[in-house]
């Protein structure tokens, strides 16, 4: 079984939990005491990932420490539907958004860790970089909408969407509102409405997807 070294509040770990849920891949979860224990910085954990970051995905002798690589691995194992179209242009665009998700983690993700778990750093710079990234995402998604599209690449959701979704949907946790980004908001709703979607703390269930219970 594939094993995920996991932390419940980590946006990067959530990428993998969400992807696995959408693909119906069962993972074995190993909770790591990231906060307050900082177990990911322990000597024992360094054997697994010298960079001291989460998530880590282990399948036999394969050890992955980059969440975008994990998305590719899970999607490849599961029939390739989530890899995006394979024409040169689309394949390059998927790579663009996988890399872009790193920028989201380095800006919105850090703002969130600052505001929530007291990480030290330049909060104004993180928020400003977060807004800059959201503007790019908003422009791209607006153009997709003008062309009748919903997803970042192609006609179906892909690893590109899953890579970018967590830090965007959690941006409020770091004091960055999505009010000014209507196309981004609709895109996050589309992801939250997917079959088998799973939430994480900070992203509420879309209760409207189920009918109101009968009043007795």
């Amino acid at each position, binding site marked *: 079984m594939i094993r995920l070294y996991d*932390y419940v509040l980590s946006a990067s770990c959530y990428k993998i939990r969400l992807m696995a849920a959408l693909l119906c891949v069962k993972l074995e979860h190993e909770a790591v005491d990231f906060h307050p224990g900082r177990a990911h910085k322990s000597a024992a954990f360094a054997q697994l990932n010298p960079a001291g970051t989460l998530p880590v995905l282990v399948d036999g002798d394969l050890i992955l420490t980059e969440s975008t690589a994990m998305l590719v691995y899970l999607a490849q194992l599961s029939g390739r539907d989530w890899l995006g179209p394979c024409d040169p242009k689309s394949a390059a665009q998927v790579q663009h958004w996988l890399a872009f998700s790193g920028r989201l983690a380095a800006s919105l993700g850090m703002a969130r860790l600052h505001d929530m778990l007291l990480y030290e750093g330049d909060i104004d710079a993180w928020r400003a970089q977060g807004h800059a990234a959201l503007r790019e995402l908003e422009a791209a998604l607006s153009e997709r909408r003008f062309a009748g599209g919903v997803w970042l690449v192609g006609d179906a959701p892909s690893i590109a969407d899953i890579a970018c979704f967590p830090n965007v949907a959690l941006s409020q*946790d770091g004091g960055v509102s999505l009010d000014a980004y209507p196309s981004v908001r609709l895109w996050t709703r589309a992801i939250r409405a997917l079959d088998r979607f799973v939430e994480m703390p900070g992203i*509420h269930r879309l209760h409207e997807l*189920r009918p109101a219970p009968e009043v007795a």
Partner: protein
Amino acid sequence: MIAPEVMNEWYPVAMAAQICAGQRRVTQLLGQPITVHVQDGVIVVTGQAGPLHVTEAFGHVWACPGTPAHPLFPIPEALETGRRLVDVGVVRVKCSPLRAVENFLDIAHFPFVHTDVLGAEPHTEVNRYEVQIREDSDEVWATKVTFYQPQAAKSAEGGIVTQYMYRVPAPTAAVLYKTCPARPDAWDVIGIFVQPLSEELCDVWPWMALYDDATPQAELIAFQQMIFLQDRSILENQIPRLLPLDPGMEIPTQADLTSIAYRRWLKKRGLTYGAQMVAA
């Protein structure tokens, strides 16, 4: 000027284990800068005007910026053998410390905020329960609280009707007792200790004393952090940020008896730091 009633209370300011491990915590209490650190083998809390009263309990460092009106409240269960004491770590929330406590006392939000864990539609009904302000200890207590829960604890298997008792022993601390899935004759104990950084910003320290030998520590912490972080996005979006003590400002129902008693108790005792007195 902060009222003496507020200054003379105890507030959590750090996790004891982290300070004992040599960390120095530079933080704030009631809007004033403080530092928590170890000096000559003892934990000290220093403010601008010198040292504060300090005590250590339930895994945390507590400080009183005035003259303590009373000793820190006890949690007798913390001393029982066989319980695992779990420090969950700090989470910062942009809300009034009093709103953070009030949310902890509330069960009606479980189906909507902790969906499929602490509650689920259609099991939304809150049955009548009992609330009192205990004269001897001057604490708010809610008893005979029951609620249907799909996954009441990390150790729970399937849905159960959970019994609860709630207790507010200090203005910014609350303790709950709930059905222990592993030991039907005992209660699990969960607390939240809230450090008022300012009237609209707080550091929250969840803490647990559980009968659970099986679940790894990291999973117990993850479960409680999951629950509290689901609340955080609510707490940061309540308007106003301050807790209204004017009864006309918000509309409670019978399910909110604990919150009503908590607000009255705060008002009666003049514990209004983080509260809004008149409708804005």
